[in-house]
């Protein structure tokens, strides 16, 4: 796929990610529907396949999930610069795409976090600050358990999968009760999946 991006297109790409950053409560992944609408549907800077593969690849790779944004930007850059086969121009444009997307996605939220937590730390003896942090604690723990549940359960209307549920339960018990390295568990899960057992 080849597209041509003007200077103002690059600017609007950056602006879109700045906006998504401000909306990304719960992580960048919560903004994927809006990101898809902007990049794939309205501007057609990215194919649907590239978008989906970016998310899948970032999940298979080590590192925070936010890196799918770098891949999405990278693919926009590939399409705009004629791909890596186009030599230096292709490489530079692809890297520029990844950088613009990541910078846009991280600058607003990280700045806000930095400023807000400095204020919170300076005022940590204030009752409101203590109430916020200690009051949120049960919700945060509940969210973690719910996240695990949602991941293993899938969409609300998807069928119950005994194999993946069993794998999730076993890995939960192992992590909760032992100090086995997490990478062993992930490797075992990947192997079970690749061989078609789950």
């Amino acid at each position: 796929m080849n597209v041509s991006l003007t200077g103002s297109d690059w600017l609007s790409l950056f602006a879109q990610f700045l906006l998504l950053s401000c909306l990304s409560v719960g992580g960048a992944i919560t903004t994927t529907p809006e990101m898809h609408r902007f990049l794939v549907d309205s501007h057609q800077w990215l194919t649907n396949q590239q978008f989906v593969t970016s998310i899948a690849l970032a999940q298979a790779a080590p590192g925070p999930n936010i890196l799918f944004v770098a891949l999405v930007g990278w693919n926009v850059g590939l399409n705009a610069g004629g791909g890596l086969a186009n030599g230096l121009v292709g490489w530079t444009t692809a890297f520029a795409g990844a950088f613009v997307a990541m910078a846009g996605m991280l600058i607003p939220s990280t700045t806000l976090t930095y400023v807000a937590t400095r204020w919170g730390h300076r005022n940590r003896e204030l009752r409101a600050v203590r109430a916020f942090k200690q009051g949120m604690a049960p919700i945060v723990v509940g969210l973690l358990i719910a996240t695990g549940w949602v991941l293993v359960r899938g969409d609300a209307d998807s069928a119950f999968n005994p194999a993946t549920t069993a794998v999730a339960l076993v890995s939960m018990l192992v992590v909760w009760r032992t100090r086995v390295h997490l990478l062993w568990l992930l490797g075992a899960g990947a192997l079970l999946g690749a061989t078609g057992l789950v």
Partner: protein
Amino acid sequence: MPHNGGVSAPQPTASHDVPGPRSLTELYWAFTILALQGFGGVLAVVQRELVERRRWLTREEFVEDWAVAQILPGPNVVNMTVMFGDRHFGWRGAAAAFAGVLTVPSLVVLTMAIVFENVADTAEAQGALRGMGAVVAGLITATGLKLMPALEVSPIGRRQALAVLLLTFAVVGIVRLPLVWVLAGVGSSACLWTWFCLKQLDDQRAAAQPDVPTE
């Protein structure tokens, strides 16, 4: 004056007994190593590395920091990283931890995109992703279970905190309400409730020790 050493002082302070990173380099590499172990999300690794292995955070501090990282926009792990780095070395620490969690992992993921352009579509790769996804679900649930003892010190009481936890699980996991509503509804109610309980505790303490100035 916050007192340390007991479970009754969960406020994080810069000068607590728990050791921290000794240099910006150590901070950078600690977060790089941490991020490179995180497949399908880094949260379980953050808990294991910072709380269990390096002991740079107590369980209570982790839960409080995670609450803040969760409620602010942006990737939770990046937010947590910035908060942690800033607390130890100011803005330079925030920058070092931020760079640690993102630079090497970004290069790794871009390399994978170049090398495995079409591999992600194969049945084996999809199967491996499905298997790892199931493990990750277990890891995240276990992280939640391991953090539950942090609720023992909740100002609203242990049982009440457990009830709030179950309510959160039900509305997010079963009813599937959007996160923003849950934070606005359950979150603000729980914070308000905690505020009143803290006020009662502070008033009782002030009545018992009239010479200690109150807020």
